[in-house]
């Protein structure tokens, strides 16, 4: 289990920021969504150990956040949302120092600092002072310091903040590559639904400090493949009955349009096979696709 929240609550003074959060997540890439002020960053800060929970507890990679903070810190890489850097240091010296602080031996830290900077695309600029970097380059340097020591869980807080479209694409591609490498899990906090949709398998949606929805996007995508809308042209009379006979639920919508629910293991070729014998053309066949935006908006309505 990557993340287990067990009645987790956080209070700043009289303000209750997180309330009784209970969930277990095990996906390779977990997205944390919510409107401004929902408590996303506070949850991240609590998981990283910067904020003490006022109620309940949480486990990160099986370690309790209150009692085993050092073990958690040894296993995670963290890329904060805000500008965080050491101005009078070159990128390679900065990433090397961060690697050493995570426990890498000196030579290994230097080697991995170079590798990490090349990996994120800062290879040519690695000897420049961080203070001279653009916002996008600083984001990439933050990513490099978060991965230099090879963490088991990478926590990214708004990783595409302030990036122009090409830089955003590069960041998303890097996140996808790291996810697909199978070497680490990712927890990504973003207010950009598209970023989460492109990178995450599971999402946790927060609203006013409470969990309002958890969803496995992979399962939802697979489930959505069973819902089909199609538009037929030609002699399509009897199509609905034929599909029902094949085990589908099919409802005609008029003007040759049909909505169908396919049974488990149904092969779409069956539809084309039926059509080919009757001179029926399909002009459109769409799988229903609940976008993350729809999931998010539904969760907000709830």
């Amino acid at each position: 289990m990557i993340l287990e929240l067990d009645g987790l609550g956080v209070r700043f003074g009289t303000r209750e920021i997180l309330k009784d959060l209970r969930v277990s997540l095990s996906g390779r890439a977990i997205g944390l969504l919510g409107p401004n002020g929902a408590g996303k960053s506070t949850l991240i800060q609590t998981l990283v150990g910067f904020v003490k929970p006022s109620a309940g507890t949480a486990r990160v990679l099986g370690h309790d956040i209150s009692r085993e903070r050092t073990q958690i810190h040894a296993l995670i890489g963290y890329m904060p949302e805000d500008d965080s850097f050491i101005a009078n240091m070159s990128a390679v010296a900065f990433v090397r120092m961060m690697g050493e602080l995570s426990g890498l031996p000196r030579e290994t830290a230097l080697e991995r600092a170079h590798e990490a900077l090349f990996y994120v695309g800062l290879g040519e600029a690695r000897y420049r002072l961080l203070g001279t970097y653009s916002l996008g380059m600083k984001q990439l340097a933050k990513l490099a310091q978060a991965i230099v020591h090879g963490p088991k869980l990478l926590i990214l807080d708004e990783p595409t903040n302030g990036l122009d479209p090409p830089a955003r694409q590069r960041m998303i591609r890097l996140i996808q590559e790291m996810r697909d490498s199978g070497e680490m899990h990712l927890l990504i906090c973003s207010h950009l639904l598209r970023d989460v949709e492109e990178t995450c398998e599971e999402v946790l949606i927060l609203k006013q400090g409470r969990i309002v929805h958890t969803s496995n996007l992979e399962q939802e995508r697979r489930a959505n493949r069973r819902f089909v809308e199609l538009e037929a042209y030609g002699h399509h009379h009897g199509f609905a009955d034929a599909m029902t006979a094949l085990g589908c639920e099919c409802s005609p919508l008029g003007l040759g349009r049909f909505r169908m629910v396919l049974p488990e293991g149904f092969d779409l070729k069956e539809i084309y096979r039926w059509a080919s014998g009757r001179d029926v053309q399909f002009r459109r066949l769409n799988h229903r696709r609940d976008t993350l935006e729809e999931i998010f908006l539904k969760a907000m309505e709830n």
Partner: protein
Amino acid sequence: MAVYKRTYKAFDGALTPGWSRFLILPRSSFGQVTQSKFVMVYLMACFFFPLLCAVFIYISHNVAFLQTFNIPAARLFAIDNKFFEFFCTFQGTMASLLTAFIGPQRVAPDLANNALPLYFCRPFTRAEYVLGKMSLLVYFLSLITWMPGLVVFIIQASLAGWQWTRDNAWILGSLLLGLMLWDLFLSLMALALSAWVKWRIAAGALILGVFFAGAGFGSAVNAIVRTSYGSLLDLRQVISVIWAHLFRDVSATAEISAGAAWGALAGAAAVCLWLLARRIRAFEVAR
């Protein structure tokens, strides 16, 4: 060394022991201190007085030289507890200025650039951070305080003979304790003040202000309230009283007692620790 690997790979080698990681901070910042020409020139200037002391000790023991220039030995300063107390006062003042030059760069930029979450999301504690940052300051301050003091004492001991060394061994203890204590306090104060104001230049000015404005403020308090306890705000006077106490200087006249001075230094250190505990955090809560 392969530096061009565009794939991510995990690390599964042996890690360094946790206790040694605070030493990474001074090693990483050492070059930042030494690359400043001004600081290097100042550091060299700080060795001038110890060199002068060493030359003076050598001359005072060189009978042939004294006879050649017809200098009566009785007219020279005695190499005793007051000599080393003055050494402490002079080098201690130089150390205060060095602290104002190199101290604020240690913590203020990290706070200004929000770098603390990057340190504390690793297996690295706040105490280790403070220890690491302090150790560089303590190193440079030691270089101009007790280290040359020790050399000067050894020169005197080697020239004055075993009897003098045995009779005055306590001076070495006082010298080391007094200067090490001052180095630690200066480092702690530099970190605390720069963490408080978060701005390097302002922190440097504040450190100087504590030494030079503290005396004036203390005198004003003494005059207004008609007490001598205002002098506790004058850290230079506080440490002078402590050094006089350590060097058993009965001729020293001060407005405050040694006990009050020790208490004031401990109180100031406690305030610095409190400031550091409040400021050196990965995350500030806006209540």
